[in-house]
């Protein structure tokens, strides 16, 4: 075979290859190696409306908790499952432990200036009524602050008092906390302790310093553990969390 012939065959082969490629390009997938779409997991509890309401807020709203958005966790229309304890009482789910209204809204059950019958056991310890057993008393480290009446006044449930006998309305409970937690209070005043919402520039608009009970359950002030929001999604096959594991 001579050189020209070979050249012609080569060129013919190339022409064929190019012609075959044309429909491949035109009809082939054009998306490329793109990782699959992923449906982001909805992060629950990420609006400021879903945090605790403070005692002051509850009292002002007369127990109205509509500011809280149940449906940031629950599916609208679906009935939540109820868990009951041995006494047949509804046990608040652990996810509700940080919700003040589940336990703290006295006005929801008690009328104002209602007389409460207190019962004592043989050892002179107060018998805590079943309704009040839910919030375990965990204020302070060694259980030294577990007596309800360190702060409550037996015959004035709408008031609280410091250990020195100074009395405050329930909505001013922050002053009660201050009587022991001076350092935190100073920082709270400076804005260093606790949540702040609104405007950093006080001249531009409102600014809200949250009350102690807006974040802390006074009976168990340490924060309850919460479910974390979804972890980052790593679609690439080599990444630390393969996409397949993502719910």
């Amino acid at each position, binding site marked *: 075979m001579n050189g020209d012939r070979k*050249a012609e065959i080569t060129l013919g082969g190339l022409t064929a290859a190019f012609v075959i490629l044309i429909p491949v390009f035109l009809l082939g997938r054009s998306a*490329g*190696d793109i990782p699959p779409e992923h449906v982001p997991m909805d992060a629950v509890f990420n609006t400021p409306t879903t945090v605790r309401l403070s005692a002051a807020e509850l009292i002002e709203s007369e127990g109205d908790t509509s500011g809280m958005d149940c449906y940031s966790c629950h599916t609208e229309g679906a009935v939540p499952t109820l868990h009951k304890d041995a006494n047949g009482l509804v046990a608040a789910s652990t996810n509700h432990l940080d919700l003040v209204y589940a336990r703290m809204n006295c006005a929801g059950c008690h009328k104002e200036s209602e007389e409460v019958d207190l019962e004592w056991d043989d050892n002179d310890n107060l018998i805590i009524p079943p309704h009040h057993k839910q919030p375990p008393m965990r204020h302070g480290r060694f259980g030294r602050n577990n007596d309800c009446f360190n702060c409550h006044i037996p015959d004035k449930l709408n008031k609280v008092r410091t250990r020195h006998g100074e009395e405050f309305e329930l909505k001013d409970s922050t002053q009660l906390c201050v009587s022991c937690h001076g350092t935190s209070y100073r920082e709270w005043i400076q804005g260093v302790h606790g949540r702040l919402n609104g405007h950093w520039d006080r001249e531009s608009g409102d600014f809200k310093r949250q009350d102690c009970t807006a974040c802390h359950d006074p009976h168990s002030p340490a924060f309850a553990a919460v479910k974390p929001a979804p972890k980052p999604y790593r679609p690439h096959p080599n990444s630390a969390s393969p996409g397949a594991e993502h719910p």
Partner: protein
Amino acid sequence: MSAHLRDFSRFLWRSCRLATEGDWRYYAWIGLLFLATVLGVNAYAKQFAQGLATSGMNDHVAWGVYIANFTFMVGVADAAVMLVIPVYLYKREELQDFVIFGILLAVVAILMSLAFVMVDLGRPDRFWHMIPGIGKFNFPASLLSWDVIVLNGYLAMNIYICGYLLYRRYRGQPPVGWHYIPWIFLSIFWAVAIHTVTAFLYVGLVGRPFWNNSIVGPRFIASAFVSGPAIVILAMQMVRRVTASGSATERQIPNREAHLADHSSRPATLEDFKALAKFLPELAHVPNETLSKCLPGSAVVEANEGEVLLWQGDTDREAFFILDGRVVVKREENQRERVIRNVGPGEICGEISALTGTARTATAVAESPVKVIRMTATALRRLLQHPKMNQVVRTRMTERLMITDKALLTLRSIVQVSIVVNVFLLMNELFKEFYTDDLHAASAHYLYFGLDGKTALVPWIWTAVFCNLGAMALLMLPVSRSLKVLDLACVLAIVGVWIEKGMGLVVPGQIPSPLGEIVEYTPSFDESLICIGIWAFGLLCYTVALRVAIPILQGRFSAKNGDTKPIPTAG
């Protein structure tokens, strides 16, 4: 001016025509490269339309094979300077013709590195933001803006130098020194600058301890001195092979019996020199007294097609000026012979042996019936006493295309030294990382041994280590004076440097991430296709450039010579 422009556009047109001529192997090679380029373009079109999500890169490893190849190609562009330095600073003339090939390689390498940067951009439509004066140029703060300047400057400089040298040669004019020598010297400085600046892209990042390491710059230069000349060695071997006229059995050199001595000659006269001056204008400046002194050793000889004027290996001392017809100069090496020149009226052959007293380096055969002036060494020396003639003859001597084994071995010694320096610098780095074993050694741990069970790069880097050590061992041993072994050593060195300086530097620098996360990276299929496409495009450019440059250097393709047919090769 317009005549110049017309000549130049004719040169470009003829070059394009020449680039489409070749035998079936040439077509197959060009065609396959074009095919790969088209596949790369298709993959890039996908990336352009869909975004860089088509690549394997991610938030943690935001630079991948594109930038790795970019870094490697900038190193290859350094190759030109490796060849320029010995020629212009140390007068190593055996590398003279290599300079053009080296500079062409540099041009192609820069084009490729610019292409790698372009495909890496998330918004290639906004590339103009990087153009100084038009966009907004963060100079001198951003090293990337430095890179834009040095890379484009280097590109322009090298296009000018090789374009100038080739075009002058095409027009049969010797190059004017001050038109290109200053640029050559600037490009030596500049070549170091492009690679140092590219190294500083990495070194300047405080958040990446693996890169933020002062040894990266010197290592870049050392490894460029390895990979650049190694690529030139391989490319030149390819050129030798392709331009070789077939195997020994097919050679067309006539038998020794047809020696010129059998033919009649007559003493030369002044009229013969006048006739020669028509083709060699410089000769007209030589006064008759000088010419008369040359007459005793000069004779006019006529030879028929296929007859041999001089034989490779012989030790006669005569030079030949062509008066009429054409002469092919061929060299036999490694059982192959290559056409190294094709000389016509006004040109000289055989002057090297005549002037240096060495054995003939090639055989000269009459391509057509020829008429030549044969001069003895003494007569030629008398003629060269005239400065004009001296300049002409000496310049042509050094402009010859001569890919000799000696030249390849000179390159070998460059690679030899550089690879030792490179391995030494690598050991320095390894000592610093692993002896202290501080937190910053995490990337090196990941690269060499894997981290937290993630080992994607480990096989790669050990391949590179063995390639580098193997290449170094071969190069240090005398065995690599054999070109086959030298080729093997060069391939090992190139692969070693490509891995070590590309993926082996760019990727582990980002693993673990600045927050200690280990997210690995593997290029996607489309990403690899784009890289292959750019490589194919680069090889295509280099092939076409050589396709035009070689006939020019051989004297087959010139303004005087309309013949654009390729050198016949074995079919």
